[in-house]
C-alpha cells in the first residue's frame, strides 16, 4: 500500500477516534457510577503485555518476513542498558536519550 497525504489524513482521523474512545467513555461512565472490579484487574495487564510484544517485534522479528531473528546485537545490549537506566532513574527522557546514544555507539562497534 502506497500512502499519500489524503490517506495520512484519514489515518489521523481514524486514529483520533480509537485514541479518544478509551479515554472518554470510561471517564464519562465512571464519573457517574462504579468501575467493575474484573475490568480493572484485566486492564492492568494490557499495557505490560502490549509493550513487551512491541519490544519483541522491534528486536527479534524481521519487519518484512516476520521471521524470528537473533542478529540485532546492538539493540539487544542497548535494551538491557535502557532497562537498567529506567529502573534506576525512573526518567523517561534520560532512558530514551541513553538508549539512543548506546545503540548509536554499539552499532559502530558491532556493525
Amino acid at each position, binding site marked *: 500500500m502506497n500512502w499519500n497525504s489524503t490517506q495520512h489524513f484519514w489515518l489521523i482521523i481514524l486514529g483520533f477516534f480509537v485514541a479518544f474512545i478509551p479515554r472518554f467513555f470510561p*471517564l464519562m461512565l465512571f464519573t457517574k457510577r462504579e468501575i467493575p472490579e474484573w475490568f480493572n484487574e484485566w*486492564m492492568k*495487564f494490557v499495557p*505490560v503485555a502490549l509493550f513487551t*510484544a512491541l519490544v*519483541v517485534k522491534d528486536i527479534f522479528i524481521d519487519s518484512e518476513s*516476520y521471521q524470528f531473528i537473533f542478529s540485532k546485537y546492538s539493540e539487544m545490549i542497548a535494551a538491557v542498558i535502557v532497562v537498567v537506566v529506567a529502573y534506576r532513574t525512573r526518567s523517561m527522557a534520560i532512558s530514551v536519550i541513553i538508549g539512543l546514544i548506546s545503540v548509536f555507539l554499539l*552499532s559502530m562497534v558491532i556493525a
Partner: protein
Amino acid sequence: MNKRRPNPKQVPDPDEPLWRSTLRVAMPLNLSYIPIGLACGILLHAAGFNTLLTGLVSLLIFSGGAQFLIATMLTINSPLLSIVLMLFFLELRYALLSSSLSPYLKGQSNRFLFIFAVSLNDENYAINYLKFATDKKWTGKEALMVEHYSLLFWAVSNVIGSLIGSALKIDLGVVNFALTALFLYMIVMQIKNRLTIVICLISGVFAALCMMLTKSTLGLVISTIIASLIGFFLETTLKKHLPDSHWLWKLRSPGAKKSVVENTEDN
C-alpha cells in the same frame, strides 16, 4: 528558576497566578517531551507525513507510543486496518487511566470531560493523579491546564522534529530505537511484582509465535489479549489460593523519591 533550586519545597506564593503555578508543576514533563517529540517528528517525516499532518497528529492523537507506532508501521507499508487496530489496542490502556481519574472529576460537565479526555495521556495522567491524590486544591481546571501545557510542548517538538527531518539526513535505525526505549521504559514503570515479570516473558514468547504464524502485526493484538488474560487469571487464582505467594511481593525500586509520581499508574 535557579533561585528555586536549593529549596524546591518552598511554600508556594499565594499571589502567584494560576497559569504560572500549573506551568511549574508541568515543566519537568514539558522538558522531557522535547527530545522524544523531536525523535517522533523526525520519524513521522521519514514515514511520509508532511509537517502540517505531523502537527495535526500530535494534537489529535497526542500519544508518543501511538505516533511512533504509526511511523514504524507506515515505513513497513502496513495496511490501514492493521494500523488502526494496533492503535486501538495500544490506546486501550487509557481506559484504565481515565477510569482511575474519574473519582476526582465527579460532577464535571460532559463538555469538560470531552476536552479533558482529548488531551489526556500517560505522562500528564501521572502528574495529575498524584496532584489529585495529594493536593486538595487541585481541581479539574488545574489538571486541564497541565494537560494543555504538555500538549503544546509535545506538538511543537514534533513539528520542529519534522522540519529537522526534512533538512538533515538522519540514521533512522538509530532514531527508531527511541520507540523501543520508550516502550522498555514504560514496561519498567509497570512492573510492580514478580508476577508482572512472568507476564512479560509469556507475552514476549506469544508475541514472537503469533507474529511468525500470522505473518503480520495482527499477531501483536492476539498475543496481547492472550497474555493479559493469562495475567488476569494467574493473579486472581494466586490471590484466592496463595495470598502470601512470593510472586505477589512488591518490588522495591531505587529512585524512590521520583517514583511516587510514576507508581500512581499502578492504581
